[in-house]
């Protein structure tokens, strides 16, 4: 049987939970996101600055960056040369496609792979670095946003890239 005392307890807790869930101040209490960066090429991982190599990171690995000192930067599992890391913002791993094509698009992933066909097994034409911009001329729907067709400066088809690594630049769409 629900006593008056128990009823007041439950009611108070429910009210407090509802109030706190709608309080915007929670966002201010969350820690700032840590800086991230991507590896440029195959990057040796050291046990300490100027120490011995304990492994390698694959190219375009996104990792949380620690303190930088003397040309070295601390990462999750050791140290890497600071010159081998390019800082980059975190991004939403979803494709943002333009309403119409052609359109200008920017690489938001660590790198975008351009292939001869819209197929992961087709030969690689180019590897485009983070923040590079290109003109997309067509789109094929599929998993993870499908594929976009990229054109070179003369409008000729360069190849296809998975749309998930790109975002549209609506403001300069021709």
């Amino acid at each position, binding site marked *: 049987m629900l006593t008056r005392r128990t009823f007041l307890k439950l009611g108070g807790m429910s009210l407090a939970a509802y109030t706190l869930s709608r309080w915007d101040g929670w966002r201010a209490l969350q820690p700032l996101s840590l800086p991230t960066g991507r590896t440029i090429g*195959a990057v040796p991982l050291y046990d300490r600055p100027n120490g011995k190599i304990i492994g390698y990171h*694959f190219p375009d690995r996104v*990792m949380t960056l620690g303190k930088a000192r003397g040309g070295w930067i601390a990462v999750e599992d050791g140290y890497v040369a600071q010159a081998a890391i390019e800082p980059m913002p975190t991004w939403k791993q979803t494709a943002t496609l333009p309403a119409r094509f052609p359109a200008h698009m920017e690489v938001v992933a660590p790198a975008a792979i351009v292939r001869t066909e819209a197929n992961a*097994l087709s030969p690689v034409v180019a*590897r485009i670095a983070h923040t590079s911009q290109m003109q997309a001329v067509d789109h094929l729907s599929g*998993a*993870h946003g499908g594929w976009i067709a990229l054109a070179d400066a003369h409008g000729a088809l360069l190849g296809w890239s998975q749309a998930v690594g790109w975002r549209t630049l609506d403001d300069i769409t021709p």
Partner: protein
Amino acid sequence: MISPRFLSRRDLFTALRPAARAASSNYTPTEHFYRELRNHYPVVSAEHWRLTLAHGAQVMASLSHEDLLASPATEMDATLCSYAVHSSSALISHGRWCGVALRNLLPERSAYARVMGADGRDTTLTRQQLENAVMAYAVNGVELPAHLGYPVKLIVPGTYDHKCPGWVTRVELSDTPVADYWLRQGKVLPDDVQPFARIEQVLPRSRNGAPYRLRGIAYAGLRAIQRVEVSIDDGDWTPVSLAAGVPGCWSRWRAEWYPALPGSYALRVRAIVDGIDQHPVIPRPFVVNVEAVV
């Protein structure tokens, strides 16, 4: 004494199982061992089996199965693979072989030795190959199965399987090389294993933020593999962690991979020996579909 036995469909299926089944152990389970696909193989009775040792036509000794088992035994880890392993995925196995060193069975030395099997195939060993060869009667702690060459299979480390005949019945010393079975068939097959590496498993992440774990093997026969490298989507070749190698045995490699975004990736691997990539054929990529990156 010798009668053909036909392989069942299940046998054929077993032969096609990838070596990855044995990833938990360095040894391939005997039931999953690579074997050549053939319509039949000899079934030899140990009771009547004899191993004849000869120099040319002159017989030097004839050993029974019991004689062989009574000889000083030796154990050896060795990888067995087909010369077609570079273009097919399953034609390689690794086992612990028990038998008698061939050099200890021979009363004299010669430049070449021709080893013949009850299936009509034979091979010619050089003196150096003969020094390392073992007449194996057990693998992975069990008696050699009939389909692998019971009662005795020749194991020559660092060579392809066609240099390791099974159901061995005769060893013949000679001073000149003799054309072996495959050469008489018009096929010139390589003796020494060409270096190669392979991706065997891509284990999905166990939790959010964890890496994909890449697992594979690399093998270079009697040569030492300097390093194994992986390329993702034709990117830079990145060295991966390679277990210390033993000549004549495959080495396992592993790597951790954090895909940057969901989608399809084409992974390639290569083995570096003597400073260069020596794969005889360009390996097909291992395609991984990453559903989500968290």
